[in-house]
């Protein structure tokens, strides 16, 4: 991290982070994109079962939000959580192994796409219940405050979750107890098929912060630097004991909600318009324009990501399936209960 005053006209992220940190961020964005594409391809080829929720198009939100976090800081994630997992430093091979349902996966094949977690890196897990992670994140922040760890929790949730009761209860309690938590809403415009216009009474979800007397800001979630600037400020407030904030990253998922989605609720033109605002292309351009990386280096970073994903898929393919006789293992911590 650079400790200098931000010059005029230089995007926040360029001033705030070192070249190495920025190139690592770009790499993570490529890893997310290629993880999702690999997952989709594996599904198409019948290598995996179940469903998945892909975050292609949302990479800047996941990576940008986690920039100032350490492994001690926590995140809670969502059903569309692969990107958060990568952003928080997960191992791609173990992620893919979980996706393939293997014993070598993060959840030993018990969780799958919707429950990938890595507590050793502070990732408390994705969640299959919309809004399920909101109160849990507040609990993690309560632990940090009470135990004096100095850790901050980022709670990722979608625009759909902002209409759950859990959203209201969690944000209210976080403010009442002044806890170190940042609520990051990834507003990708649709809760499954229902648009925010049809589901949400306010124009911007961040407007709801007023009801909880906390700062709220809406940013272009496809602009890495804008995301980083907003979330870093919120993380710093939380770390300084100034309580919770709400940041809304406006973004878009290029793919459908899940594999059953036929995209009947949105137009091809709308999807194409958002694809022209690719957050990864924008990030690469940012690094090249500011001479953080050359175009060759960017190509090298992408090639690295491709190789890592290929290795991860190979690792996952070779992994052992869990043993059926161990199916009830880990229901309880001690195997005495039934």
């Amino acid at each position, binding site marked *: 991290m650079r400790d200098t005053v931000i010059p005029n006209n230089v995007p926040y992220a360029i001033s705030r982070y070192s070249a190495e940190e920025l190139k690592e961020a770009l790499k993570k964005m490529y890893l997310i994109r290629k993880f999702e594409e690999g997952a989709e391809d594996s599904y198409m080829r019948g290598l995996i079962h179940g469903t998945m929720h892909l975050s292609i198009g949302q990479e800047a939100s996941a990576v940008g939000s986690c920039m100032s976090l350490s492994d001690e800081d926590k995140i809670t994630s969502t059903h569309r959580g692969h990107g958060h997992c990568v952003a928080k430093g997960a191992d791609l091979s173990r992620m893919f192994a979980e996706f393939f349902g293997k014993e070598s996966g993060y959840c030993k094949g018990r969780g799958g796409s919707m429950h990938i977690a890595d507590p050793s890196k502070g990732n408390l*897990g994705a969640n299959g219940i919309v809004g399920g992670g909101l109160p849990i994140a507040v609990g993690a922040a309560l632990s940090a405050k009470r135990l004096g760890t100095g850790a901050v929790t980022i709670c990722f949730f979608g625009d759909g979750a902002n209409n759950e009761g859990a959203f209201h209860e969690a944000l209210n309690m976080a403010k009442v107890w002044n806890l170190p938590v940042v609520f990051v809403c990834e507003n990708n415009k649709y809760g499954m098929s229902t648009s925010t216009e049809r589901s949400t009474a306010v124009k911007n979800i961040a407007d709801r912060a007023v009801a909880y007397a906390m700062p709220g800001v809406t940013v272009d979630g496809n602009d890495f630097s804008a995301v980083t600037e907003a979330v870093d400020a919120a993380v710093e407030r939380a770390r300084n004991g100034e309580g919770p904030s709400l940041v809304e990253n406006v973004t878009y998922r290029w793919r459908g909600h899940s594999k059953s989605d036929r995209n009947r609720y949105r137009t091809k033109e709308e999807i194409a318009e958002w694809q022209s605002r690719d957050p990864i292309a924008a990030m690469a351009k940012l690094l090249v324009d500011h001479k953080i990386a050359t175009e060759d280096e960017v190509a090298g970073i992408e090639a690295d990501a491709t190789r890592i994903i290929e290795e991860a898929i190979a690792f996952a393919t070779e992994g052992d399936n869990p043993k059926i006789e161990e199916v009830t293992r880990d229901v*309880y911590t001690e195997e005495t209960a039934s």
Partner: protein
Amino acid sequence: MNMHSKTDLRELSYAEAIREAMDIAMVRDERVILMGEDIGVYGGAFGVTGDLVEKYGTDRVMDTPISELGGAGVAVGAAMTGLRPIFEFQFSDFATLGMEQIVNQAAKIRYMLGGAVSVPVVMRFPSGSGTGAAAQHSQSLEAWTAHVPGLKVVQPATPADAKGLLLAALEDPDPVMIYEHKILYKMKGHVPDGYYTTPIGKAAVMREGKDLTIVATSIMVHKALDAAETLAAEGIEAEVIDLRTIRPMDRDTVLASVRKTGRLVCVYEAVKTLGVGAEVSAMVAESDAFDYLDAPIVRLGGAECPIPYNPELEKAVVPQVPDILEAARNLARGRV
């Protein structure tokens, strides 16, 4: 240990015993916090937390907003990250608002994450009828949570077990749900001094007998013991088992008793259908103890009805001592 020392024979109410357990736990372990609605200066709707807030402050005895879902979820998240929360639902009925966090999160997180984390949360549920509070403040919903793998569910019937099971719950690495009966809060009984635990998953034989087995939970244990006293005078020796934990259930103690007596009555306050009694009955029917039965199994449970307001109606919808007596006499005299 001197079993007859004066302190060993001291009596506490069930509520006092729970409070003493929380007090002991909070001294022993800085990570223990209490959370719930009106548990601070108010002392809890049933006075269970009492004046603990004066001793430990509002950072450790936390009044939550009226937010059962959020509150339960905060307790789950705190338990995953190093605290040992004891979360009180003001009435067990209100836990219906928090079921998402209990059933989808607390119970499943360890399994879904392949054992990477445990969720050592303790939740307390003041339950049961008899207070004139009608249908939304009087239910016995323990079977709901007992149906969910990943949870442990206990129902202490005595002050001593209320203390011991709470302290055992805090030692347990997994989520433990404690269903306390509101009518028992004022009941007094012998409570040992200091720290001890009552094992989760172990039933207690409260009275030995050879003629029939009465398996009971919570307040019904006391009704069963009252009935057993009357039955003894009539020459019928009833064995009374307090199940204490309904998940995991103590199969060995129940089956051993049924093998001895050959007759079984299950008594519980919750609605009879699909409840604890169904599980106890099936446990016997699926085991070798079935061969020892001399009569059909009898279940006594709550009526297929919400808890009504009128006091006579309220009594009529849950098993009472005469119901137990009638069932026991019929069984013992071969009338079933």
